């Protein structure tokens, strides 16, 4: 597993070819560790397979969480594990070793955090992006986009029509949930309806009683409401007719009905909560006993502009209380920071991004569909890592930041009299060199020779494999996302420390057979 990911580390990676399972096309050509580990499903040897799946799970989870760092984690993991096994075979204590490896990991984490510098501006962000995707035009575009939308901003990556990359910024926010009836679309050229200074009934009611709806419309007209958006779970044909009749003269009064966003109950509740915070409305929730007859004008949200088409509802200039909106966003941010599940984090990030006031769309072009899909995946992965870089900052790249963590570990080893502790820190010191050695080897350099050159240079220096020079990596714009590096090292060391304490492997040979046991 590690051997398949190792060649992808660095700006001049090697290529990994994977045989396809169900296709007569040629092998799949890959250079992204996250994708490679997903393709490897099983090894023939049962013990090896169990170990490989352990590493696969660790790398996959890392990739899902921060979008990058799988190759770094893989080589650090292997170094720690291999050295650890050798030490344990010579009589070391596995549990003590694990404890000290984890202690050393926290020191590395803190050292990296101390080295991290804040990143801002499209040029810096583009540098980070390039260090992840090695695609300068894509990196430049993502640098600009993230300098605008920020770490939580919404970015849709879509297939473009041409060969180039294009981007578009959308003001306001939008949800899935278009109009119920095509007849509610007034602008037939743009296939959408736009309303100004609109009132919005936020809710998930089933609107099926035309008389009740007519009474509500009368009430709202008396309250001087001239543009109305009704959000509902269902709208009967009779009720649709009531709205269309009431909107015969849109200059005087216009009402449309849109589908409530999201399909699951929890997603729907979240969307309604966000819409309420944004527009200042009070959601009418059917399960909470709300009904159309109880809706009052003051329950409606307000917005400067609303647009809707067959698929989306968009809001620009929601008129909710800005203080309440800030508090709502702060709550979501706190939940995001606490969330561990990648799916939950993605949903929370999307919600925060929507409420921040805009979104961006990146159109990825290309010659073939395969090329487009590959670049889209690369864009999404780079975007994830950029978000982390904005939050956690950046580090000197090319493995230099990991080398800079070694003195603290060496000092801890020198100060300890416990042989397990000293061994653990020395293992980590050697493992932290592994990423830079791998980058050098992948790029065709003699790792030992270059490492000696780096040792002679000042602190903060590393090797630029493209120019073939020892440089101040930060000044040369070789940067890594701090969150990716921290998470990669944490995953690798914690994973290896755990793996070193595994004594027994249990296999299920087949459905009917008894479990067999083997020692590892």
């Amino acid at each position, binding site marked *: 597993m590690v051997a398949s990911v190792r060649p992808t580390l660095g700006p001049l990676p090697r290529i990994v070819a994977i045989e396809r399972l169900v296709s007569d096309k040629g092998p799949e050509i890959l250079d992204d560790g996250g994708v490679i580990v997903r393709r490897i499903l099983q090894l023939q040897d049962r013990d090896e397979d169990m170990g490989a799946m352990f590493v696969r799970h660790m790398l996959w989870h890392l990739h899902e969480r921060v979008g990058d760092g799988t190759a770094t984690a893989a080589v650090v993991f292997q170094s720690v594990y291999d050295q650890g096994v050798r030490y344990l075979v010579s009589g070391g204590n596995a549990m003590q070793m694990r404890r000290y490896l984890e202690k050393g990991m926290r020191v590395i984490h803190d050292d990296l955090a101390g080295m991290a510098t804040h990143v801002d501006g499209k040029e810096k962000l583009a540098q980070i992006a390039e260090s992840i995707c090695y695609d300068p035009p894509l990196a430049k575009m993502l640098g600009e986009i993230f300098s*605008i*939308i920020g770490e939580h901003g919404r970015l849709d990556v879509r297939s473009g029509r041409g060969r180039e990359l294009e981007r578009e910024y959308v*003001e306001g926010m939008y949800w899935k949930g278009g109009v119920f009836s095509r007849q509610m679309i007034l602008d037939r050229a743009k296939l959408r309806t736009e309303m*100004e200074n609109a009132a919005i009934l936020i809710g998930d009611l089933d609107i099926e009683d035309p008389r009740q709806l007519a009474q509500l419309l009368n009430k709202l007209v008396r309250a001087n409401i001239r543009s109305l958006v009704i959000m509902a779970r269902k709208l009967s044909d009779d009720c649709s007719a009531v709205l269309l009749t009431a909107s015969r003269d849109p200059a005087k009064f216009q009402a449309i009905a849109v589908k409530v966003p999201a399909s699951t109950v929890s997603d729907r509740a979240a969307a309604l909560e966000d819409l309420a915070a944004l527009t200042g409305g009070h959601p009418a929730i059917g399960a909470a006993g709300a009904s159309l007859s109880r809706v009052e004008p003051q329950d409606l949200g307000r917005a400067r502009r609303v647009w809707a088409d067959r698929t989306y509802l968009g809001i620009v*200039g929601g008129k909710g209380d*800005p203080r309440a909106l*800030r508090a709502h966003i702060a709550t979501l941010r706190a939940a995001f920071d606490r969330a561990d599940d990648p799916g939950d984090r993605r949903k929370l990030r999307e919600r925060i991004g929507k409420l921040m*006031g*805009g979104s961006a769309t990146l159109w990825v072009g290309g010659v073939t569909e395969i090329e487009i899909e590959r670049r889209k995946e690369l864009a999404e992965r780079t975007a994830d890592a950029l978000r982390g870089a904005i939050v956690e900052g950046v580090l000197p790249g090319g493995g230099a930041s990991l080398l800079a963590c070694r003195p603290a570990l060496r000092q801890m080893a020198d100060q300890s009299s416990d042989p397990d502790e000293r061994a653990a820190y020395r293992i980590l010191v050697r493992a932290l060199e592994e990423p830079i050695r791998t980058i050098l080897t992948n790029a065709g350099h003699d790792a030992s020779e270059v490492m000696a050159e780096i040792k002679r240079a000042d602190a903060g220096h590393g090797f630029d494999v493209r120019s073939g020079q020892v440089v101040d990596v930060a000044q040369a714009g070789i940067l890594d996302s701090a969150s990716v590096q921290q998470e990669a090292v944490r995953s690798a060391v914690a994973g290896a420390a755990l793996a070193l304490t595994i004594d027994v492997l249990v296999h299920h040979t087949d459905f009917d057979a008894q479990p067999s046991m083997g020692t590892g």
Partner: protein
Amino acid sequence: MVDNVSEETQTQDLVYALAASPGFAQDGVCFAARGSGLYRSDDGGTTWHPAYGSLNTEGALATTAVLVSPEFESDQSVFAGVHGGILRSVDGGETWNAAILRSPPPIISTLAVSPDFVRDGTLFAGTVEDGVFRSADRGSRWSAWNFGLLDLSVISLAISPRFAADETLFAGTETGIFRSTNGGRAWREVSFPTEFAPVLSLVLSPNYESDGVLFAGTESCGLFRSDDRGDTWTRPGEDVVDDIVNAIVLSPAFPASPDVLVMLSTALLISRDGGQSWSDWGSGPISEGGDDRALASILAPQGLDTGAPLLVGLVEGGVLRL
């Protein structure tokens, strides 16, 4: 101390904003944005004449903001904020072109211009309900850029003197202060306590790049000063400046000459030590028959040195030249 009270004081319409030519000391050109339209003076604010003559509008065209190009002497550009759009003149207010902002029509609360306008052509318009609009083509086309601007009620804008390099500007809103460091394309809130907002006035030190000083005037909590680009705030003159701070003017030589002038609802206060101690600018000129007159806008086209002219727009209409 009053040099003159202009004839326009007869008209009871609020003076929303004042703007002067950078060459005011020589050409005496200044503009007043008022409920009844835009007025131009060619004699340093002594006499005024309507600037919208060429528009032939039927009624008054209420003008809520005015801005003069930093290169006015050569480009003669003037910008005026009206309901739903921004008017642009390239002949000192003789003729006008209108840039209509997207509907519903925004109300312009304030205008700001890049100090490097001659090269970047960048302008900003703050609005009452629609956030910030930005133009990068000398005011021909405007588009809203409100990423991260969680409060779209923009009352004041302040642009960095080194905008061409740092792309920094601040927006004061109903509920706080936001900063952009990418030329107004995206905004982040600064740590100004929301309970002290609305922020009616903002001004950056002419030496902002190195000293990081900015002042904020609030509706009910007086004056605030930050020495670290908005990260932390102090309240200079807390006991004295405890009224609405409608406008703040810094000496062009700040901080070497640490003069700060604030316009409260009915008084002008001056500090000669960066805000530590305060004194009245002089109550006489802005009182009439013992009654304080409500002040709406201020302009110090030649700085705050003793004897330098000061133009004060009144809520009741008219401009005082002090």
